[in-house]
């Protein structure tokens, strides 16, 4: 277990706009290994939701199977959660979203859950631009079954047992961009400064928001020779930008050099301010992002930050033209055409 959570809370804990303290956003005690990257991501989700004053019950957490998929129990205890079957979180999230468009959907998955058994569903949920936050807690290995290589393990990466992975890695961020994901970010579980605003921006994005978070497995993949260890990631990380999530529209005050700051307006009027560090990269241009990722890979760098965003494309509800009332709120009078109509239908079959 990672840590023991004290039941006691300081009475003067800060409250958010809804009057909740961070406590209302926490979950049960984590049963993951001490130092697991996943727990840091859970903590970042708690902080992001608290700071954004999201009503906890207006969030649904859905996951597949694996260490990462256990985490929804460890954050947002006042939200409904659904630990479904291996690799099938996207379909459950799709059905849930169709039922009620007025909630925030957090999909939590791992590299085994998304890049192997669930690759088909990962690909198709992107295609449909489902309005959800999709977090992959990516540690390059199967933790719950004791450390086998996953499909995101880099070629040449050495496991704890000493074997070298002979296969090429699937780069989920590149793949998501290629498939037309409308929000793609990459981060590191150890970088809360970057992760929290990314989660906030992802929640505001109306469409599919993908976060690929490198999250070292302390037990099975944190050894020398692994490319998903804390040490390796820290040494090879390359931020594309620093990012601020701006909840309202303030006057633009920037200290950054002209031409290096980009603002992206979200559907709900909020803004993302990106202060670019990489000059050859434009977050609204898929080709530029794809190139930047390829270049980084050849240099063994892990590009982080908000890599790509597109606010133009319709999400799935938009594509299907569903009504503004959530489908699960509709009653008989909305749904059943009634006896008289049925008489006409019967007449048509005579």
């Amino acid at each position, binding site marked *: 277990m990672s840590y023991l959570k004290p039941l006691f809370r300081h009475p003067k804990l800060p409250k958010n706009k809804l009057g909740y303290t961070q406590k209302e956003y926490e979950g049960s005690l984590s049963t993951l290994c001490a130092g697991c990257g996943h727990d840091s991501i859970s903590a970042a989700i708690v902080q992001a939701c608290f700071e954004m004053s999201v009503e906890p*019950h207006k969030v649904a957490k859905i996951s597949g199977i694996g260490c990462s998929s256990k985490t929804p129990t460890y954050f947002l205890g006042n939200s409904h959660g659904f630990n479904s079957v291996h690799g099938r979180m996207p379909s459950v999230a799709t059905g849930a979203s169709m039922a009620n468009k007025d909630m925030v959907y957090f999909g939590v998955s791992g590299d085994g859950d998304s890049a192997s058994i669930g690759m088909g569903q990962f690909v198709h949920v992107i295609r449909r631009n489902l309005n959800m936050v999709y977090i992959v807690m990516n540690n390059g290995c199967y933790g719950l079954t004791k450390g086998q290589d996953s499909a995101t393990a880099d070629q040449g990466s050495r496991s704890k047992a000493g074997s070298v992975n002979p296969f090429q890695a699937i780069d989920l961020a590149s793949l998501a961009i290629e498939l037309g994901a409308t929000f793609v970010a990459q981060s590191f579980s150890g970088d809360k400064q970057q992760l929290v605003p990314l989660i906030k921006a992802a929640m505001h994005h109306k469409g599919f928001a993908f976060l690929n978070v490198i999250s070292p497995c302390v037990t099975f993949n944190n050894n020398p020779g692994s490319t998903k260890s804390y040490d390796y990631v820290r040494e090879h990380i390359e931020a594309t930008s620093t990012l601020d999530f701006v909840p309202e529209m303030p006057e633009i005050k920037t200290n950054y050099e002209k031409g290096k700051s980009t603002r992206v307006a979200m559907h709900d009027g909020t803004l993302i301010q990106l202060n670019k560090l990489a000059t050859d990269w434009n977050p609204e241009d898929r080709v530029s992002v794809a190139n930047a990722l390829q270049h980084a890979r050849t240099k063994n760098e892990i590009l982080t930050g908000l890599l790509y965003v597109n606010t133009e494309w319709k999400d799935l509800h938009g594509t299907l033209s569903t009504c503004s009332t959530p489908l699960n709120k509709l009653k008989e009078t909305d749904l059943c055409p009634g006896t008289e109509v049925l008489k006409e239908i*019967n007449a048509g079959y005579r």
Partner: protein
Amino acid sequence: MTKTVNDFIIRFANVNGTGSASANYLFAKAIFRMGIPVTPKNIFPSNIQGLPTWYEVRVSEKGYLGRREGIDILVSVNPQSMAQDIKSVKPGGYFMYDSTKKLPTPYFREDIHYLGVPMMEMSNEAFSDPRKRQLLKNIIYVGALAKLLNMDYSEIEKLVGEQFEGKKQLIDANIQALKLGMDYVEANFDYPLSFHLERRNLIKDKILVDGNTACGLGAVYGGATVMAWYPITPSTSVAEAFEHYCEAYRTDPETGEKKFAIIQAEDELAAMGMVIGANWNGARGFTATSGPGVSLMNEFLGLAYFAEVPAVLVDVQRTGPSTGMPTRTQQSDILLAAYASHGDTKHVLVFPATPHECFEMTAESFDLAERLQTPIMVMTDLDLGMNDHISEPFHWDQKRKYDRGKVLNAEELEHIGRFGRYLDVDGDGIPYRTYPGTHPTKGSFFTRGTSRDEYAAYTEDGAAYKRNMDRLMVKWETAKKVVPKAHLYQKENKSEIGILFYGTSTFSAEEAKDILEENGIIVDAIRIRAFPFGEEVVQFIHSHSTVFVIEQNRDAQLRSMMIMELETNPAKLIPVLNYDGMPITADAIKNQILKHLNLENTQHHELSKTAL
């Protein structure tokens, strides 16, 4: 020659993709409009264009809607299958063919009548457009049949008018083609034939529709809002019907906003996942599939059973295993569906037999799924789903309310103590659930496929796991009381022998019952409409010494379930089976029953001899 009125079988031999379907449908519908019971069946290949396809129409004054062996009239417009088609005609029957080309000598049989109509030649002379020539050739044979069988021409003309409403040119061309066929018969043959039609008033307010349309419409009336599916024969038209009626009745004409969401999923696994996600979140969601899809959905069905999430699945069964014969019918997913998924699982099944029941049971399945918080599978099949059937009209009580089951709202959560998602408060095995988003601090819970306690907290405590599994069996007992009851054909038993059947075996079983009776063998009958079996089924089995279980699969699947679930002596349940992909016939049922009864007699005889 003896005359046979309103009792014959006609088979059309066509090439698929040549527009024969609408001509054949026109023929069948005209007979329906003449007030005469009619059963059309498509026998088609797993192919889009160029292979043989047949359309068989049974006309039965007595109202028998099952398939019968023996073809009285064969209309041949497909040279590919001609040799086989000629062989299939009953002695004394008729073979109508396109005499544009001379019939090869080996195709002549002494014991049947030949009716050569130069369909292609007439069509080529009358029409210039090649596509029209091909399509209207089919209408020419309808015209010829109209004369030969004494059909009511005004009904055909009316149907053509309805089909091509507002398209005068097409109506005129079709009428012209009909007349060509009629005139040719008038000039060349004696008519009507010994098999022919006479107007009756036997249809009353019944409708002619396929089961898949009825399931799709039933889902609209039942309040389904989310449909996820993956294309598979023979279930695809369920999704199409649902979409058609939703577009018509659930779309705002001004804004175009829709009160439904239909997703064509990437596979059946995803389709079932979406259905579960939607139901978990308080919407009525369903899918339609066939056997291979149910195989893929197994893992999710187990999750829905264990995590207690409602779901509705329409299984339009086809001939398995594996890809099997995708365009042929069978009742062979029964065991797969009843015990889908690993671990101890049992699922509720309903068995519609008519389009009326397809509509009713699909709608009711949403109530059952939410009442019982478990998947409900509607077990229909290709024969019922894709063929038109005469049926009682669809019925909906204007006052009917959806039964949304045990769901707590925010106010109720305020007033109860600690909420236990898997706590059996009422003693019926059904716990209370909440929808996501109900209350800021109360009623949230974690849904999972792993074991948990009454408060939905993860646990590996064997006692808690067992308590939960036992509660699911309490719920199973509750299910027995709420699922559709079996239909009994008699108030009091009249015989030691019973016959038992379900779904599309019904029509032929009813006919077989009458035939047996004519032969002096009285049998009692029961039609199963759901699994788990209710008390009335147990009573029926216990009160008969022999029960023939009629079904359309090799392994007598429902019989196995009766042995397992009712602890019945297997020796008293005699399987009566058909599994060649064609709908079961009354003759097949009658023959198997007679064979068994005779064998029994012989055995008794032999035994008594030995005893002496």
